[in-house]
């Protein structure tokens, strides 16, 4: 089964059952996505998941083995790159080394039907947008990495494409610059209203930038949704494990009705209570997943909690604003618990120390039940 959202009415980019094979290797496997006008859409996945191949098919650098691509209602599946209303910002930036910053930005405009004055205005406008006007006369090797990244962005935006494709736009920048640039890209997307499709392996980048994320694995789109969707409501073990950290263990459904679901989880030595889920029926095997920050940790046995477990602190990490506890249950299952240090406390005043017996509790709404 593949995630699909072709139900959306009339998207700007419609990718239908797209497949790309390199010899025996299937890089992109029957992918269908609809991307709306004005969206900032992210393709997220590890290396070799097919995200870059998918982007290159959108740009026209790779020909699909099967499937179709429509942009603004027009079938562009077999159009060459120079006939698509799409521009790309390359991971290496791919600036023309023998041209000045200004010439780089102006390059795409020589094919546009416009007067010289209009062309000059557009170049100036683009350089202003990325704040590079003072460096217009420099060559690419005379400017810094961050500046090069902005030249690449300005060059790709100059033709006012319907879609801008960004291949790992922040990967080559250092951490501090990356955070700043992230907001700058989102800001420019908002100002220009152009549809952005970003390829990234960095989940934080995808979550802060994108309005929607497609999580890819082995050429397949596993889930499409907002940052909240993929984080709080993952549809598979892969997505749950790929985005953020999570503890997963096995169980069998014992009861499923309109108010709640009960799952027997031998590793916890009891029953886990979760929200009602129509898809589940008794005796069905499921994976139970709980995020570390959804679990409360206490010294005393908490009252009135649906799910309560007990274990011993095996590991403890202090990060300042929060601490990470790894709590081992009698069965050997280790749960990660993230606890915010909302009170100022010395080392001896912590909730728990190594080898301490602690109680863990979490709400039924925090329990994710996965069948895939």
């Amino acid at each position, binding site marked *: 089964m593949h995630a699909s959202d072709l139900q959306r009415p009339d998207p700007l980019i419609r990718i239908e059952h797209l497949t790309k094979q390199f010899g025996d290797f299937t890089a992109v496997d029957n992918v269908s996505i609809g991307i709306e006008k004005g969206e900032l859409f992210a393709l997220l996945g590890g290396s070799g998941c097919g995200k870059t191949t998918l982007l290159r098919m959108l*740009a*026209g*650098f790779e020909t699909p083995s099967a499937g179709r691509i429509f942009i603004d209602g027009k079938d562009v599946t077999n159009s*060459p*790159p*120079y006939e698509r209303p*799409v*521009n*790309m910002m*390359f*991971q*290496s930036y*791919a*600036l*023309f*080394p*023998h041209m000045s910053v200004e010439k780089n930005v102006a*390059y*795409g405009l020589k*094919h*546009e039907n416009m007067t010289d004055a209009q062309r000059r205005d557009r170049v100036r406008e683009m350089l202003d947008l990325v704040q590079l006007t003072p460096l217009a006369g420099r*060559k690419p*090797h*005379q*400017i*810094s*990495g*961050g*500046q090069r990244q902005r030249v690449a962005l300005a*060059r*790709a935006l100059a*033709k006012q494409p319907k879609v801008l494709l960004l291949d790992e736009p922040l990967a080559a920048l250092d951490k501090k610059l990356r955070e700043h640039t992230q907001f700058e890209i989102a800001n420019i997307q908002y100002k220009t209203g152009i549809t952005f499709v970003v390829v990234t392996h960095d989940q934080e980048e995808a979550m802060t930038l994108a309005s929607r994320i497609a999580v890819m694995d082995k050429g397949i789109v596993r889930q499409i949704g907002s940052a909240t969707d993929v984080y709080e409501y993952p549809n598979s073990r892969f997505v749950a494990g790929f985005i953020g950290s999570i503890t997963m263990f096995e169980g069998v459904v014992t009861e499923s009705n309109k108010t709640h679901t009960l799952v027997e989880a031998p590793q916890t030595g009891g029953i886990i209570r979760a929200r009602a889920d129509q898809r589940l029926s008794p005796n069905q095997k499921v994976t139970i997943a709980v995020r570390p920050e959804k679990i409360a940790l206490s010294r005393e046995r908490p009252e009135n909690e649906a799910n309560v477990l007990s274990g011993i602190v095996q590991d403890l990490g202090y990060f300042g604003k929060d601490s990470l506890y790894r709590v081992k249950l009698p069965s050997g299952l280790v749960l990660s618990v993230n606890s915010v240090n909302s009170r100022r406390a010395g080392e001896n005043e912590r909730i728990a120390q190594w080898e301490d017996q602690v109680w863990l509790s979490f709400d039924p709404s925090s329990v994710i039940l996965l069948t895939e």
Partner: protein
Amino acid sequence: MNRRPVFLITCLCFGFAFFYIPILSIIVFSFNKSRLVSVWGGFSTQWYGKLFENDQIIEAAKLSLSIALVSATIATILGTMAGIALARFKRFRGRTLFSGLVTAPLIMPEIITGISSLMLFILMADWIGWPGERGFTTVTIAHITFSMTYVTTIIHARLSSTDISIEEAALDLGSRPWQVLTDITLPVIAPALLSGWLLAFTISIDDVVITNFTTGPGATTLPILIWSKVKLGVTPDINALATMIILIVGVLVVTAGIIMHRAEARRERDIQMAINANT
């Protein structure tokens, strides 16, 4: 430890002596007054004067130069095309075979290339009546086939190390493939084109073996002329000619070196400036 590596310096001196003493002796003896090559008879520049009065030598030099110019230019065009095909068309049928065929002349003994070129010209003259006689055209063609291989290798190496995404970026920005070639690829590999051309030129201008097989009566290049003159004994005017050639080559090499060194120094300064501006 501050001891000088005497052994290394001795090696270096021997090396330099090995390279340059023969050349120096040619230069010194070109100013010899005596007709006898190995006997010093006092300083004179008479052989240089004689050189410029010798029509045979002037004609041969002109012929060599024009063959080298034409063959280097055509070899660069063809070699660049082959290099681009090898480096940029990743998957086509018979690519490995093509690559092998293109580079085979590099290791082929020159004498084989010479004989096979000669055979081809004779057969062609038989079948299609062209080339009627061997001379400028046949020598130029033979030089092209030979030196094109070197250009191909240089261009292929250069393109393989050039980021292909700049060409993709140009396509993406609306340029057709031939515009990408003229706007992006060729300007970026211009230094490789120049060194390819220079190499083809050098190979052509000092070639004896292949030229010997493919030339005909009335078309004598400079190396062939020198070769035939030396067979009758080295004369002082040959020394003068050799000295002139050394001078020209020396000036060219030093000029190219200075230009490249300056460009490199400027580039490094620019990069340093960019880094400073960034911090």
